[in-house]
């Protein structure tokens, strides 16, 4: 890292998560196990206040990556450094400290709240767990945070139960809840995909505002490239557990390099008179990433694949100082 660029907030190196599975009786007998390569050698850095979008189809490993970062799951190998400290294998006490600074919000706001607790109790609990403030201070902090997010009057919401609120309201409160701890890093895992179109913008804007006011970095996980474009500074396209390419959002969208990125963009549905261009046809569905051998993960569906693609796994390589692509076509 050169002196001029700031030290990264998050530095993920060769992160891997394999889920072992035994598929047959023979496997059980021979104690042979297969592995789902959910996340395979993912590396990236994230600067304070930066938003990185992880984009890909379902099962591509983007959510697993998010969970690994906040240590809801533990990596099989690789390292996660947060502010220079290795957090890959923290013990429970240190983990609690880390979690205060790295938070996650999920897709389904209804599952994020205990249905038997009032909103007030849910919010109080977060502060209580991290031992922040007295009862009164906590109350004041909660009301202020809700007001800051435009949820007013706060009293109207605090005494209610989750089922009395809409999905949009709950997701906004879920966001407020993680903000109570003033984290430096937020993993937002498809935070708007279950919400109605009209309320999505509210959540997205809320997150952007928080980034602006708090210099909070966000890993924004989404399947929707348009949403990614709206939110992110940089974008990483994932396919079968690995990055296909990563770079500044406009560069990637306007000039996709990896064939998969091209396919993804060309299949995005236009709105109104938007012009997307001819779809790049790729056959079949993404396979399950079990026991991946060598070669490019996308080779079987890639219209440009050649011999080398099946012989050698392409590495993520810089095509310009801010952009990296994992494709043998780039070598030409």
């Amino acid at each position, binding site marked *: 890292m050169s002196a001029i660029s700031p030290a990264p907030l998050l530095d993920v190196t060769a992160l891997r998560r394999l889920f072992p599975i035994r598929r047959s009786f023979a496997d059980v007998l021979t104690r042979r196990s297969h592995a789902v390569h959910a996340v395979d050698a993912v590396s990236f850095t994230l600067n304070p206040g930066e938003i990185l979008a992880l984009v890909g*189809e*379902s099962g591509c490993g983007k959510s697993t990556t998010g969970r690994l970062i906040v240590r809801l799951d533990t990596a099989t190998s690789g390292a996660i450094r947060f502010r220079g400290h290795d957090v890959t294998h923290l013990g429970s006490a240190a983990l609690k400290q880390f979690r205060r600074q790295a938070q996650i919000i999920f897709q389904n706001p209804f599952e994020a709240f205990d249905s038997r607790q009032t909103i007030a109790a849910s919010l109080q609990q977060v502060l209580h767990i991290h031992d922040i403030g007295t009862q009164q201070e906590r109350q004041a902090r909660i009301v202020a945070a809700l007001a800051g997010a435009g949820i007013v009057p706060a009293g109207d919401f605090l005494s209610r139960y989750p089922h009395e609120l*809409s999905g*949009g*309201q709950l997701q906004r409160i879920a966001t407020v809840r993680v903000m109570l701890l003033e984290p430096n890093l937020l993993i937002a895992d498809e935070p708007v995909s279950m919400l*109605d*179109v*009209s*309320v*999505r*913008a*509210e959540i*997205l*804007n809320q997150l952007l505002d928080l980034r602006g006011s708090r210099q909070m970095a966000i890993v924004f996980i989404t*399947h*929707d*490239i*348009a*949403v990614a*474009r*709206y939110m992110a500074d940089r974008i990483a396209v994932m396919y079968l557990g690995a990055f296909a390419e990563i770079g500044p959002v406009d560069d990637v*969208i306007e000039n996709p390099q990896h064939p998969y990125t091209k*396919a*993804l*963009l060309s*299949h*995005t*549905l*236009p*709105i*109104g*008179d*938007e*012009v*997307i261009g001819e*779809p790049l046809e*790729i056959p079949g*569905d*993404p396979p399950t990433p079990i026991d991946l051998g060598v070669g490019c993960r996308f080779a079987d569906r890639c219209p440009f694949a050649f011999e080398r693609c099946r012989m050698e796994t392409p590495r993520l390589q810089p095509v310009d100082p801010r952009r990296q692509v994992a494709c043998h076509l780039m070598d030409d």
Partner: protein
Amino acid sequence: MNQTRSLLTLNHLSVAYRTSRGAVQAVQDLDLSVPAGRSVGLVGESGSGKSTIAAAILRLLPENAAITGGSIAFNGVDLATLSDAELNRTWRWREIAMVFQKSLAALSPVNRIHDQLNDILRQHEPALREAERDARLSDLLRAVHLSDRVLHSYPFELSGGMMQRTMIALGLLCNPPFLILDEATTALDVITQAQILREVNRLKQEYNLTALIISHDVGVINATTDAVAVLYAGQLMEVAPKRRFFAAPAHPYSRALIASVPRLSGPRQRLAAIPGNLPDLLDPPPGCRFAPRCPYVTPRCSTAVPPLYDLGDGQFVRCVLFESRPIAHPAEETMA
């Protein structure tokens, strides 16, 4: 838009749900017609009543829901007045078929695809021999680019995309003139969704289908329809030819809806959120149901439900902002 024969005409259709806390007017006084050979998109958020409309057309409303007014004219016959037996014999699937959302659960999980499709076909074509039915099934699958292997599979053995193609094949089973697609591609990945939508467009041509396409996703609507009807909280807010809808949406809600969707191109401006929440349909606001969230709200918006105003070129809007325009009489004319 040209005056074409309307295949399906919803006239002042109202549907209400009975709940423990009172009646919910899910669809209120809805007028809509789908001309033969065209695709009409029904766009709206959750709770807008769009799936209720689909269920009402096939008379599949749950036990606690009922058509409380209006008619569903299909080829001149009011489906709302028919008995279950009549619907089963003549209308369901033979005339109107449907592709459902959540397609993975749309067939029985413990029976093979072949057995289920065959069972359905036998209901409608009892005269066919077994071999003829099998041939029909194979043909259909080929039409949606699936192999015969699918027939011998169980639903869980198929990917989301394959299952959705199967459901489209099922929809075409009896060669119906009219197909309803209810959020048919919602759960699919981007690439699969786009592929299937292109297939739907092709099949519409091939089978000369009239379609009602229901989605919350303006992208899907854009990709598949000729005209768009916008629903909000059970009220029809606007009907417009597709191009017109995207280029010049008239209703404040339509405008907000389009403005709230992030784009893949163009300037990256701050998305306009629609403040507030959907109204409580147990106690809906009087008059225009969008009024509480509308930036252009006037006192008159709450006094009565505005009529549909005819903006010309097939565009109709239910908003007092357009009161200078003539009031449309959808019962007498064909829209879209």
